[in-house]
């Protein structure tokens, strides 16, 4: 399996409306177009408002059905609680820190699984 580099994206919390809009666009584009796994880091957010929750749900929706894997870094217990209450944590793995998220085992993508099968098949002595 290839070790794919992670993309770490800061979550646009506490930003002005214009900045927020820009960051939101970048975030969604990255999730849509990036071939690498994406870590969305909102550990610097003191709390999450309804716009934040909506955006996190959108992130989860963007990643669903794609090969892009998304992980959330909540930072605080309060944020983790809010993700549990909104059931987001049942859709996306949530971590306390970026370090923890980086240690999360990378699940092979469909193509990689295919590569893996081929390489296993070619192994001498394999059935």
């Amino acid at each position: 399996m290839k070790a794919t580099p992670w993309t770490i994206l800061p979550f646009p919390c506490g930003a002005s409306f214009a900045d927020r809009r820009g960051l939101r666009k970048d975030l969604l584009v990255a999730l849509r177009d990036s071939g690498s796994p994406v870590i969305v880091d909102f550990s610097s957010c003191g709390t999450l408002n309804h716009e934040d929750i909506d955006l996190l749900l959108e992130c989860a929706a963007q990643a669903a059905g794609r090969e892009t894997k998304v992980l959330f870094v909540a930072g605080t217990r309060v944020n983790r609680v809010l993700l549990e209450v909104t059931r987001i944590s049942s859709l996306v793995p949530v971590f306390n820190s970026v370090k923890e998220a980086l240690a999360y085992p990378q699940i092979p993508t469909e193509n990689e699984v295919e590569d893996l099968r081929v390489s296993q098949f070619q192994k001498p002595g394999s059935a």
Partner: protein
Amino acid sequence: MELGAVVVVPVREDLMSIHEAQPQALQASENSRPFYSSRMPILGNDIVRSWMERVRKLGLQSLWLTSSPRDESVDRSALAEFARQGVERLLVIQLKSYAEMDLADLLRFHCESRNPVTEAEDARGQLGVCLRDYLALQATGEKSAFPSAPTDSGPTPYQFRGYAKRILTAKERQELVRDALTGACAMRPLGTEIRERVWVGEGANLADSVRVIGPSYIGARTIVHAGATIGPFASVEHDCVVDCGTTVERSTVLPETYLAPGLLIRHQLVDGGYLEDLSWGAVADLRPAGLGSRIQRREARRQAFREADVHAPAGRASARDFAPSSTASQPWLRVQL
């Protein structure tokens, strides 16, 4: 010997003032401090009333109700004033536990052991129930004048071996809810048992598609919308609204709380716009995300009640006659039993 009784409700004055002055201050609170009062009902039951009933069984006609900052006893000068008013023995109940205690047995033990002070304890320590005799009452007010007078330390405590549970933290409170729902204690949910271990209070409204898994309790006038799941081990107190698809499991929802649609409340306590996670102790503000709030329709009434509470002693003859109310920082209410 004339016996008097006082029930002291612990309050978090600092937290109350934060709520009023800085509503944002609790948004990112990570501490495990409770944010509700021990006066909040448990399965529709008022713990103060359960203690009042026990005091009434002692033959008392009335008791005094006051409040005190948590972990502090009642104002010492006020206690000493009881002695000056002719009360020779005082039963002080701090509302920090629910205990199925026979107070007559405590009184008997107190008399037999001839201690000036008797504290009730269980295996975990003091239960907040104490009997003080005249000498001890006097000593609390004038300790320096009575250096040899018996103090709180020393005397043999009353060992209580019946059911008792502390109620000062959300976790302890949830344990009491669990025990009451499973019949592990004498407390029973205030409502009709519509099927095995499912109780519903008067005027509660449950949509047809609501799933209630016992043991569970839904309080009076609470509305549970379509697709919601309540239970197991859930208590939704009176006048709440649980919106569509929300699950409340192993949790308590305190009175007059609105919960938004689609939430998962699991092992948590929700009080209006605030939620405490029982595992982590983290307190989250649900309001900015629109996930929960206090139902406003009764807020005005509650505020009026609170103001009446504060000002009531000055307006009542019994309270005005009682000197401690002029020196004590807390209001005192005389309650007829």
